[in-house]
């Protein structure tokens, strides 16, 4: 039976949706161990136990340098567990940690993973989601960066208490990269873009006013996304950018408004389950991939839809 190691760079009292999906995936393997580059709180331990996982490794972050602590923890946890599967987030930071350990420990690194079978075969998106590929490790260790919204979160019962061990890390060399400044982003009430079930995204057609999108997103409990044209214009934060150089999303529903559907935009959203596009131009390429295309003015269509959702719910 295979053993899985789930690695978290950070773990709050309430593990996030993508983290819970990783725990679900890990719980399918013979043994599963969680490692966190931070101390694991009592609440987080309880959450881990809910997946039938009874072992965890932790190491408090001394806050020296950038990424070096997380790398040391992942390396130590892999050696400690001798796992043949490492599961981590698909964010750029986690991927890079996995990538470095892959060359250090002669392991395979596979990104954009949507599933891992009992035989340790990873299924993944390829060419911006236009292909699905499967790959395995040739060295016995597979490091998989798993896309959010790929695994159905399903806590598999309780492991009682979680045995937590402090990882012993070797003496750290002087950090090569130091952190000069940290700017915390304003926490949003909305679900995180990469994890959201519904995304409402706006482009140049929004013409500076994301109000109608915010309103519809409120009605749907959705995250807000954007095209690069909208983020470049400064109408919304760069964090909202969906696409090749932004966030990749795979929600149940993606509502695209005032976005033409350039290849770099499609690269980040074409694996969405349902796509609704609202665009004034009947020839906009986004209509090629839309399940429902509305040729119209987003400033009229979106408020009407938001009001109708509220009316039906009332």
């Amino acid at each position: 039976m295979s053993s899985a190691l789930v690695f978290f760079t950070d773990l709050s009292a309430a593990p996030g949706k993508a983290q819970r999906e990783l725990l679900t995936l890990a719980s399918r393997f013979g043994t599963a161990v969680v490692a966190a580059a931070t101390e694991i709180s009592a609440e987080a331990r309880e959450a881990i136990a809910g997946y039938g996982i009874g072992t965890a490794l932790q190491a408090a972050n001394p806050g020296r340098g950038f990424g070096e602590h997380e790398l040391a923890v992942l390396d130590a946890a892999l050696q400690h567990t001798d796992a043949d599967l490492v599961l981590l987030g698909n964010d750029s930071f986690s991927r890079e940690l996995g990538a470095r350990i892959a060359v250090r420990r002669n392991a395979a690194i596979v990104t954009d993973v949507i599933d891992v079978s009992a035989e340790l075969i990873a299924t993944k998106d390829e060419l911006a989601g236009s292909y699905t590929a499967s790959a395995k490790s040739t060295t016995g260790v597979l490091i998989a960066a798993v896309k959010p919204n790929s695994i159905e979160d399903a806590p598999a019962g309780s492991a009682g208490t979680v045995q937590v061990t402090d990882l012993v890390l070797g003496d750290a060399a002087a950090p090569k990269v130091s952190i000069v400044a940290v700017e915390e982003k304003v926490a949003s009430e909305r679900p995180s873009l990469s994890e959201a079930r519904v995304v409402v995204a706006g482009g140049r057609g929004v013409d500076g006013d994301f109000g109608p999108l915010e309103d519809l997103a409120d009605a749907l409990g959705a995250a807000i996304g954007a095209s690069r044209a909208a983020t470049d214009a400064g109408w919304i934060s760069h964090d909202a950018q969906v696409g090749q150089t932004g966030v990749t999303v795979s929600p149940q529903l993606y509502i695209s408004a005032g976005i033409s559907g350039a290849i770099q935009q499609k690269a980040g959203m074409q694996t969405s389950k349902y796509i609704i596009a609202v665009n004034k131009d009947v020839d906009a390429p986004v209509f090629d991939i839309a399940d429902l295309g509305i040729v119209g003015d987003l400033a009229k269509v979106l408020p009407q839809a938001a009001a109708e959702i509220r009316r039906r719910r009332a």
Partner: protein
Amino acid sequence: MSDASTTPLTIVVLVKHVPDVQFDRHIDQESLRLDRSESVLSELDEYAVEAALALVEDNGGFAAGHQVIAATMGAGSSVNSVKKALQMGASSGLHLNDAALAGSDAVATSKALAALVRHVPNVDLVVTGMASTDAETSVVPAQLAELLGFAQLTHAASVAFDASARELTVDREHLNQRVTLKAGLPAVLSVTDQANDPRYPNFKGIMAAKKKSIEEVDLAGIGLAAQEVGAEGSTTSVLAAEQRPARPAGTIIHDSGDAGIALVDFLAAQKLI
């Protein structure tokens, strides 16, 4: 200008020749490898070339002795990506060309590129794009930092260089933060499309590029054995690659005043509300 700021920098920019994202891209069903005809310089690597050129120009220009070497690996036509970088303004080219490279995964690619960087004497800085537009893994820059023992400054949305301290400062989006990071040389720097606006090669640049040298090396020339790269040197093995079924054709409606209602009807029919 201080002495330190004129200490010449040796910068290697890694460029990749990739299938044009504007066309349909295909994975060959026999070899399970990407069809590489119709390839161009990866658009994300243009930001890397620009970052290297800007760094040189801000620190005395090529007259100060800095070098920007555009390097690539891959079959014959990959050299076109080097040529494009030379037209933009890189000073010379380096092409690792060896049949044994075919089928290299990220780990094997990183091993080959690390050896290629080591082939260049006294490299201070390796610059790359944030990802390749074909494999999209974003893992090679971090692996290069690991293999070369260089500082890793990746996904930089802005880049500043302090010539006297020989230190780079970058901004990076990091989880729910924007962090400012600093490291001394040597370093591996990867830049995002937020970092700059890549220049277009002008006529002068295109003419000048014709006179620039491109060194071609094979694996033996950089001290690697064939089995260290390609499928044999890879830690992943691809078992299958299937084209996703095309999205079924959707319904297109023209708003005549009640399309917002139709939108909600669709949501209700698909049980999305």
